[in-house]
């Protein structure tokens, strides 16, 4: 009686509103929910704050979303990767804002946001430009900076398999940020290669329990970002 399965990627992102904060899973192309991102481009929501480790590559997926001027701010750790040209151009032209966050702090801030932890202290970035302006506190003789939890209106992620309760399994290092983003998103949408009935997954092996997932959409043969980039594809 749980109705988490959605019929189309279009429907899955239909309520993303202008100005929304959207977390997008993936580390480079590994785990990038490219079909959901393309549906978001089609949908047209704009002035988005996007949280992702990178900024996409080529002119498909996240890079295409940025190129379409739908993203006003990126929160990420590494906006500079191979074949990443769209973000640098907009950044140099002052057309997009960047909040640069160390990768482990980014992961922990997302986990904290999803866990009801509003803020925490971390040794990362103390004494560096990324720690500037942040509250520093000495605890047991060492300095730490205060960092705040991150949440999102929507989290778009990719997984290998889901059951009808929204329980998720991932594929190898495509897991990365997605289980955390599932926790931190008010509405989490997972595109998965296979949806099975509740009871078909071993409860000992579930990585993301279904409580963190509001919608699942089956995309049985997802596009591969690197292949599209190599072929010079663009979206739309």
């Amino acid at each position, binding site marked *: 009686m749980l109705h988490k399965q959605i019929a189309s990627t279009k429907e899955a992102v239909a309520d993303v509103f202008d100005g929304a904060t959207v977390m997008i899973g993936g580390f480079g192309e590994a785990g990038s929910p490219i079909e959901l991102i393309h549906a978001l481009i089609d949908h047209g929501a704009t002035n988005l704050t996007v949280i992702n480790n990178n900024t996409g590559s080529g002119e498909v997926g996240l890079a295409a979303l940025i190129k379409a001027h739908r993203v006003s701010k990126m929160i990420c750790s590494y906006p500079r990767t191979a074949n990443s040209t769209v973000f640098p151009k907009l950044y140099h032209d002052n057309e997009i804002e960047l909040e640069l966050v160390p990768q482990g702090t980014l992961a922990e801030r997302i986990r904290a946001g*999803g*866990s009801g932890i509003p803020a925490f202290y971390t040794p990362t970035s103390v004494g560096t430009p990324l720690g500037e302006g942040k509250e520093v506190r000495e605890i047991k003789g060492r300095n730490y900076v205060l960092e705040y939890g991150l949440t999102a209106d929507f989290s778009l992620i990719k997984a290998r398999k889901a059951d009808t309760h929204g329980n998720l399994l991932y594929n190898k290092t495509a897991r990365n940020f997605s289980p955390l983003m599932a926790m931190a998103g008010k509405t989490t949408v997972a595109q998965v290669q296979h949806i099975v*009935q509740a009871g078909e997954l071993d*409860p000992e092996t579930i990585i993301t329990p*279904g409580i963190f997932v509001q919608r699942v959409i089956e995309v049985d043969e997802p596009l591969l970002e690197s292949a599209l980039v190599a072929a010079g594809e663009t979206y739309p």
Partner: protein
Amino acid sequence: MSGLTRDEMAKRLAHDIPNGAYVNLGIGIPELVAKFVPADREFIYHTENGLLGMGPAPKEGEGDPELINAGKRQVTALPGAAYFHHADSFSMIRGGHLDLSVLGALQVSSGGDLANWSTGGPDAIPAVGGAMDLVAGVKSVYVITQHCTKNGEPKLVEACTYPLTGVGVVNRIYTDLAVIEVTSDGFQLVELSPEISFEYVQERTGAPLLPKQENAS
């Protein structure tokens, strides 16, 4: 005028849980709620010791002492269940992912304060478990309790005298006598139990009880 039995209280509460809700049931009367899932609804039960999709007690001889609920009684896992560790479990609770926490009470104040973990007595061994996390994090907190103590003292009061579990956290109270909403104006009657009068409930309540709103469902 006897009011509802414990089972009837649990059934009444279950009636108010929406389909698909993620629910944590405390130890004691709250556990009875699981017996009364209305037709055409499915609730997913969470137990804070690491299981979503908790089912009823196992058949005799089929249990696993390592598959238990928060009250340390053997349970089962339903299709679609997932196991996880305690930090993830309380991320669900603290992070506002659970829809409903059903808890027992020693006292509830008209401001929604809950006291349910300690009588504060000098000989008591204090033990809190997950109650403070549940009331701090879960979207809705329903209390299910006898309206009065065994000595006839009101449990619904102006201000709790026992140590608090949380401040301003209770949304609704289901007792043998009534269903009561905690509003910004204090206790508000939602429904009287059969054959129970407003005055009877007010007499047994330690704070003003607002009458049922006519337009309320």
